[in-house]
């Protein structure tokens, strides 16, 4: 690991250690935050007991569906919009403002329409993530050097072959950024939805534990979600950084 990486690890460990110390010595009250060690043991016990397995399946299942739909739908829509410049121009102000407005505020409206089921959660998740994928797809297709399409025509390739063998690989780094964002937004939207209002799921669990004053359970669940989200997002971020070299290196 690099020197910077080691320092970073040390900083993180030091912060957790400081929190642990502050909790154990009573600097931070037990009713407010429990020591990280207790969070970990509580989580382990919770997982071992299998009590939250159903909720884990449900939440992660919904997230996976949201991400998959957003990526596929976003890519497909991106392809279509890219092929229709006039449509793209008309939709441009929409894309520019989409992430400037709190889309999530529509979640209660979706509940009113579809009832208290996974459907509004999936819908709000896809609504949040899909546009990032569309924008990334448009960007990626833009960046495909024109000369590649000319090469395709010289080789007399058909549209599908051109797309699969030339455009897709050339646009891939940008598409990956879209994937990374879709994953991140998918997590955020689904967890928030479950938290605000949902019959079941990890988000709902945390909200319940909070109102029940059950700190041990609440912090265990929070830790679980944070670990999963951190691992997934970090892996994608590292991959994205590696692909970023491909994005920048193409010019020179």
């Amino acid at each position, binding site marked *: 690991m690099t020197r910077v990486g080691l320092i970073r690890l040390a900083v993180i460990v030091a912060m957790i250690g400081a929190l642990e110390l502050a909790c154990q010595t009573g600097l931070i009250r037990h009713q407010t935050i429990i020591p990280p060690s207790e969070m970990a043991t509580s989580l382990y016990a919770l997982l071992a007991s299998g009590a939250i397995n159903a909720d884990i399946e449900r939440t992660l299942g919904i997230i996976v569906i949201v991400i998959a739909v957003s990526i596929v739908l976003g890519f497909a829509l991106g392809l279509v919009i890219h092929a229709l410049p006039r449509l793209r121009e*008309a939709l441009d102000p929409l894309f520019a403002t989409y992430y400037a407005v709190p889309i999530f505020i529509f979640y*209660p409206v979706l509940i*009113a*329409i579809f009832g208290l089921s996974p459907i509004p959660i999936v819908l709000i998740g896809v609504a949040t993530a899909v546009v990032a994928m569309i924008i990334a797809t448009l960007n990626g297709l833009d960046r495909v050097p024109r000369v590649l399409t000319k090469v395709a025509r010289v080789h007399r390739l058909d549209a599908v072959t051109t797309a699969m063998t030339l455009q897709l690989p050339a646009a891939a780094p940008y598409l990956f950024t879209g994937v990374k964002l879709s994953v991140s937004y998918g997590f955020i939207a689904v967890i928030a939805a479950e938290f605000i209002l949902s019959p079941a799921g990890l988000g709902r669990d945390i909200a319940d534990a909070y109102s029940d004053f059950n700190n041990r359970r*609440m912090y265990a669940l929070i830790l679980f979600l944070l670990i999963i989200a951190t691992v997934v*997002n970090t892996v994608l971020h590292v991959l994205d950084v590696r692909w970023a070299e491909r994005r920048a290196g193409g010019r020179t």
Partner: protein
Amino acid sequence: MTATRRATDTLIIAAVVLVVWKILHEIAGSTALPAPLATMAYLVHMVPTARFADNAAATLQAFGLALLLAYGIGLAIGVWMGAHRLSGAVGEPILVVIYSLPKITLYPVVLLIFGLGISGKVAFGAMHGILPVALLTMGAIRAIPQVYLRAARTLHLSPWQTITTVLLPAALPEVFTGLRIGFTVTLLGVLLGEMFASKLGLGSMIMSDMSLAQSEDMVTVAIILFVFAACANALLLWIEHRLHRRV
């Protein structure tokens, strides 16, 4: 020609949205989703009411405070991490990862620390806004050409003068992008906070509307928030473009 074509295209898109809305309304029924025209009529009646004004004021107050905190703390962190290479290298991935996490999971912790009043919402909103402001400010400072610093020394500027008359203007366009994005996410954070645990504010107004099946009120408030956010963003974007054009 293109201007009129743009205008007609926008109108077509707007018309499509209204048509889809109307269709969904027919399918879902008024209690779930009111018709577009009914919503517009309701909007006109609702805005001047005291109930709306009180809730809007509460949200604006929390939002304003959260924004000040987000900007202040975010800029400070961003400047420090941008100027101090090692801190920037160590801290940037940490900030980037936190930025991607579902921060709502931490909201109960915020509530436990700050309580259920306005402080909780403000803290939660600020938590959201600090990150883009810090990350983009850091990037802006790193991007300042080294030669500016050398030029400042040859012009015998004091450190304070260097910061205020050279570094700040040089970094301003990108810093402003951070401020614009920070605006959006801070608003979202405050609204989320209100939706979960608050009796006052537009977010909680939407939630209570939903439980009381007052769909017109709910959709109207959502639209007002959208329009507010969109206009504010457009204004900030316009300022941002003017800053960028000089550079």
